[in-house]
């Protein structure tokens, strides 16, 4: 059958196939389809940069235009991965610089990027268009200057949540006057003090970018500059403001309000650092068009938040601090019937006593009032099984549910029982659940529920839960779609891990820190499973300086066709015997 179509026809057909899964399926049909597909694949996503090497990627896909890479494990966001662990993008960029001169897009998450790497990117790829650095680190504003200066056709520069060292200077002026191609600029993670030269460079850049649709600024951009910027970019679809505070002045307010009403295409708002509530009404004119609102940096009382939110009837996504309180969430549930995603962050997570009235009631109200709700991230201090039953019953369509009860091992505050049954109801009713984070007092029973019902679950995060190996066994043996499992401070040991060794090859990765996995078990797993990289992270010194039965601090296990990595720091040990022998 394959021979009845010339290659060009097949290639043309394949060009309509975008999803990675479908492309992978296509490549498995037969040898000639594999060959045709690999030459015309333009985009690749590598979820773990250590699962494969640049050489293997280049050998199979010689004509890529877009590469996405992820480095450190998710728990790195919470400081659980020590500095120097790895995730360096430099070897990738070096190899791609030679192999993919036509590369257009590079998207990195949790990787270490140096200024030299950025300079290499800016000089190796003549047609470079998109750079997204999500939660990356290791570079400074000098690196950004190279990108600005050398990437003639840059469309997107997005530094979301990266840790950038600000060396002063004014890298924004490095964008040549001839650069007019910008569509998206996100510098919200940059410092909060900027020279006037940087500010005026930003104004000029915005002024000469007619295609600019997404602009997220940093705290340093003062409110009185915002109106001018908006007037230069009236077609903005997404805006992240700078500081939203200023001395109250009617002129500033009316100027700002006027500028906002000129931006009729605005659909997403964020920023609002240091917000002065009296200025919030300046955005009222565009509220009805908003689909996304990120107020998670706005330390503002519930009543002010409610006045704003109740004007946004088309809101689909809301990120907010717990200042919104239960009352504010009830108002949200009344007004925003299109809400799909809610994230409530803690304003003071380390306070001993709650500083706001945000309880399970708020989330229950939203689950009752918002029929399209599918994604939840909720930090609070108390919960009940009943509330979880209600949420599960109201919203069987939930796909992502992350509940963080701030104090570990907190039981149902009314019955004092574990929250096993409540989370059990969630996994039983929400059959499309793909992501789940647990908290509160939990025994092995909750894992039994999860293993039995959570068949579509892809990512599970567990902390301070369970009684023993049985819990982990339920999850590993029952969750058929599991790709990422991250566990901390649970009494899970060797038995479940070793009994489910084969399962680990079907997953992207498993992280276990402060659990009871022994060094002996890690070694055994590493020896028996050559396609798994078993890495022990332990800052107490070599694991063999302690008895083998001693639990390791952290074990990070991931499937890989690249073999053990060679860039490990002193506190990471691979369980690959051959490598250990070679290096000794």
């Amino acid at each position: 059958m394959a021979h009845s179509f010339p290659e060009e026809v097949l290639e043309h057909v394949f060009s309509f196939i975008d999803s990675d899964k479908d492309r992978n399926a296509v490549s498995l049909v037969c040898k000639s389809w594999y060959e045709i597909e690999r030459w015309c694949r333009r985009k690749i996503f590598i979820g773990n940069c250590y699962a494969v090497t640049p050489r293997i990627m280049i050998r199979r896909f010689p004509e890529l235009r877009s590469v996405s890479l992820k480095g450190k494990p998710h728990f790195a966001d919470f400081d659980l991965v020590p500095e120097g662990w790895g995730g360096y993008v430099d070897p990738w960029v070096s190899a791609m610089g030679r192999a993919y001169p036509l590369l257009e897009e590079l998207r990195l998450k949790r990787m270490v990027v140096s200024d030299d790497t950025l300079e290499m990117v800016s000089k190796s790829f003549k047609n470079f268009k998109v750079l997204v650095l999500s939660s990356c680190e290791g570079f400074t504003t000098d690196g950004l200057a190279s990108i600005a200066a050398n990437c003639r056709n840059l469309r997107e520069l997005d530094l979301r949540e990266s840790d950038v060292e600000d060396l002063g200077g004014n890298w924004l002026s490095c964008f040549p006057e001839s650069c007019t191609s910008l569509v998206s600029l996100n510098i919200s993670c940059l410092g909060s003090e900027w020279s006037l030269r940087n500010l005026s460079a930003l104004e000029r850049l915005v002024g000469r970018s007619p295609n600019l649709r997404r602009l997220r600024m940093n705290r340093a951009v003062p409110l009185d500059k915002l109106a001018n910027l908006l007037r230069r970019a009236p077609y903005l679809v997404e805006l992240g403001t700078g500081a939203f505070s200023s001395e109250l002045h009617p002129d500033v307010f009316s100027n700002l309000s006027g500028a906002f009403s000129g931006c009729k295409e605005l659909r997403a708002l964020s920023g609002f650092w240091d917000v002065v509530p009296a200025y919030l009404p300046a955005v009222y004119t565009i509220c009805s068009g908003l689909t996304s609102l990120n107020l998670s940096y706005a330390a503002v009382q519930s009543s002010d938040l409610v006045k704003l939110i109740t004007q946004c009837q088309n809101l689909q996504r809301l990120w907010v601090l717990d200042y919104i309180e239960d009352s504010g969430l009830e108002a949200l549930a009344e007004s925003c019937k299109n809400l799909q995603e809610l994230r409530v962050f803690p304003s003071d997570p380390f306070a001993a006593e709650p500083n706001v009235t945000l309880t399970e009631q708020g989330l229950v109200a939203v689950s009752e009032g918002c029929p399209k709700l599918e994604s939840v991230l909720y930090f609070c201090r108390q919960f009940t099984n009943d509330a979880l039953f209600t949420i599960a019953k109201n919203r069987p369509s939930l796909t992502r549910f992350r509940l963080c009860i701030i104090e570990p091992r907190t039981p149902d505050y009314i019955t004092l029982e574990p929250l096993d049954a409540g989370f059990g109801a969630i996994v039983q009713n929400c059959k499309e659940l793909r992501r789940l984070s647990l908290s509160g007092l939990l025994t092995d029973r909750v894992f039994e529920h999860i293993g039995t019902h959570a068949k579509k679950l892809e990512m599970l995060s567990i902390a301070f839960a369970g009684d023993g190996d049985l819990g982990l066994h339920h999850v590993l043996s029952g969750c058929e779609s599991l790709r990422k499992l991250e566990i901390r401070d649970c009494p899970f040991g060797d038995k479940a891990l070793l009994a489910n060794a084969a399962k680990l090859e079907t997953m992207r990765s498993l992280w276990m820190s402060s659990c009871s996995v022994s060094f002996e078990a890690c070694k055994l797993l590493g020896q028996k499973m050559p396609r798994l990289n078993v890495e022990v992270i332990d800052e107490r010194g070599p694991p063999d300086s302690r008895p083998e039965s001693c639990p390791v601090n952290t074990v990070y296990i991931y499937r890989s066709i690249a073999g053990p990595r060679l860039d490990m720091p002193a506190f990471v040990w691979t369980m690959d015997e051959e490598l250990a022998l070679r290096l000794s």
Partner: protein
Amino acid sequence: MSTRGVEAEIITELRLGLPGNSSSGEKNEKKKKRVFDEMVNDEGNSSCSGNERKNENTEKMNKAQVVGWPPVCSYRKKLIQRDNTMYVKISMDGAPFLRKIDLGNHKGYPELALAFEKLFDCHGIREALKDADNSEYIPIYEDKDGDWMLVGDVPWE
């Protein structure tokens, strides 16, 4: 499949070796469990002192200080801290690690001096502050312009 059935399966099948390896068995399991219990419960007798200390400490520590909990991104944490606290880095010559303290937690120079003494296990700063004329040393600091200033001149607020 009933829970009991699965449980029974696990007890017989899970062991320290992979399927096929029959040398390790019940004995190893029990031994391993005991060692872990020892580490958690036993104060003095421990073969893994580092870990045991950590378990003890985790219990004793103020819960707010558990690393990485609650799971708020370090990016977001920095912003919360910015608003609520004033952390500064302190280094002492000869000490291997730098320390950080929250200036907002202290109400005056003498308290700050006490905190320094506690952190670096040294003495004399407080006395020098109190009784400047009689002491051998005077506490001074370098301000953001690079000048050396006498501690206490600038009001605490």
